[in-house]
């Protein structure tokens, strides 16, 4: 069975992993942007550090009569959810930070609470564009949530467990990405949605002057953007565990496989942001219910049939 981290060490460990992950996301983002723009990829390692330094030096601003408690709590909630998410991901056969036996259900709750965090962030500024972004995000969020739950439950069926380590173990012979080919793409939709990233950047885009972040600057903005990148890392790690076979792989040690697969998945998610145009919210919601959700059903039905065989 899996080893759990100590109660007090767990948050520190999760925070460290996520900080590193957020840095990797930022580096990948700068590199991908440079490649697509044709401006080259010089200073990719230094630029994220400089941007962080600038945000630390910038003073936070206030709007007129914001909902202060929510404004402070929303970024903290987002970051905390990312930490909870990364905690259930197993890094090797013997270690994950907190391998709870209802890992999949916990992940579902995290995705649902992300919608709350984003809504609060947009709502609390008492300003138009953040509020528009918040409304829009709730519509989108409620659409992709079901999708993600379906594919995660489908992955739990062959493992006969809701626990992440058991789900990885069940992929020893065949990875879920082959066994349930619809799973990973649909999970990626939820990943991009929950982090409002790339083609699904509906709550932080330039069409709304930065969406929920439009009136945030300085340290609160840094926390929010950091939490967003950390959440993307958590999603990539989760995708690795559930669909890409987690630690399974030849020659290399377990954790290295997890890291490699996670970074590869992150690179794909980040690159999509520079290659694919942002979808329209209304059209996405329609697609989600009319096309993607039936696909999610199909994924679940396929997993069920395979289990009956």
């Amino acid at each position: 069975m899996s080893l759990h981290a100590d109660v007090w060490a767990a948050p520190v460990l999760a925070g460290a992993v996520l900080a590193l992950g957020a840095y990797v996301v930022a580096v990948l983002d700068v590199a991908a942007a440079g490649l697509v723009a044709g401006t080259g990829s010089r200073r990719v390692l230094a630029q994220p550090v400089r941007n962080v330094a600038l945000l630390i030096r910038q003073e936070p601003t206030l709007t007129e009569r914001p909902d202060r408690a929510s404004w402070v709590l929303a970024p903290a909630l987002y970051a905390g959810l990312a930490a909870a998410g990364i905690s259930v991901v197993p890094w090797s056969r013997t270690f994950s930070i907190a391998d709870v036996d209802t890992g999949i259900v916990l992940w579902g709750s995290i995705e649902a609470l992300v919608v709350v965090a984003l809504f609060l962030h947009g709502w609390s500024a008492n300003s138009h564009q953040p509020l528009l972004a918040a409304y829009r995000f709730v519509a989108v969020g409620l659409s992709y949530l079901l999708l993600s739950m379906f594919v995660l439950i489908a992955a739990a069926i062959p493992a006969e467990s809701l626990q992440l380590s058991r789900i990885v173990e069940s992929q020893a012979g065949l990875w879920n990405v082959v066994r349930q080919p619809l799973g990973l793409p649909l999970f990626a939709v939820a990943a991009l949605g929950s982090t409002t990233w790339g083609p699904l950047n509906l709550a932080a885009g330039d069409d709304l002057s930065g969406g929920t972040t439009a009136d945030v600057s300085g340290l609160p903005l840094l926390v929010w953007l950091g939490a967003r990148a950390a959440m993307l890392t958590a999603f990539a790690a989760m995708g690795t565990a559930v669909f890409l076979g987690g630690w399974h792989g030849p020659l290399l040690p377990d954790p290295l496989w997890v890291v490699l697969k996670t970074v590869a998945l992150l690179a794909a998610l980040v690159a999509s942001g520079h290659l694919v145009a942002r979808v329209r919210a209304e059209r996405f919601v329609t697609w989600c219910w009319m096309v993607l959700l039936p696909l999610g059903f199909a994924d679940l039905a396929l997993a069920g049939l395979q289990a009956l065989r």
Partner: protein
Amino acid sequence: MTGVAFWVFGVAAVVAGWRVFRTDSMVRATFLLLASFLNVGAILLLLGGAYLGMALLFMMTVEMTVMVIFMVAFMMNPAGLNPMNMTHQPRLAAVAGWAAFAGGAAVAWRSNFPDRPLPAGKAVIAELGTELMGRSMLMFETAGVALVATMIGAVVLSSRRSRYGQDAGDDGSLPPVLDPATGAYPAGVLPEPEASGHGHHGGHS
């Protein structure tokens, strides 16, 4: 340790539940209710209901997200920036609330429930699954059918062209005319003129 955590979650659940009806901001009210649910979910986890607690977190979060949109859409002054009072029969409500609490507390205090604690190491999640798909399948399926019926009913009730045909438009909540030739409406349901139809948020002038 678990004892302290239990009381922290318990008090937080009660305080959040109390603040729900004491804040002006509808968004805060909704998320305070969510906080109350999350704390109860945490208590269920402490009690050993590994699946129940998690499911509560998940369900209530989604439910409250829908709730908050309703709050902002339908309530006037949803941010609570203007002070206002939206209560009635406060004394009756308070008395009933205290009475319910007193009754429950008396039961908790005085009753002798059998002392049969949850055995340690019981596979509660697997047991729940077997129960739902085995002995109690009928009950579970009934709940499922009820949920589907609810979904259909809710859509029919809230849809614009609901009860009376495809293109009824605004007349969706009006019964059809009795006699198409004269256009007569049933007694008492004459469509009101536009102006008086917008006595918005009535009772607050």
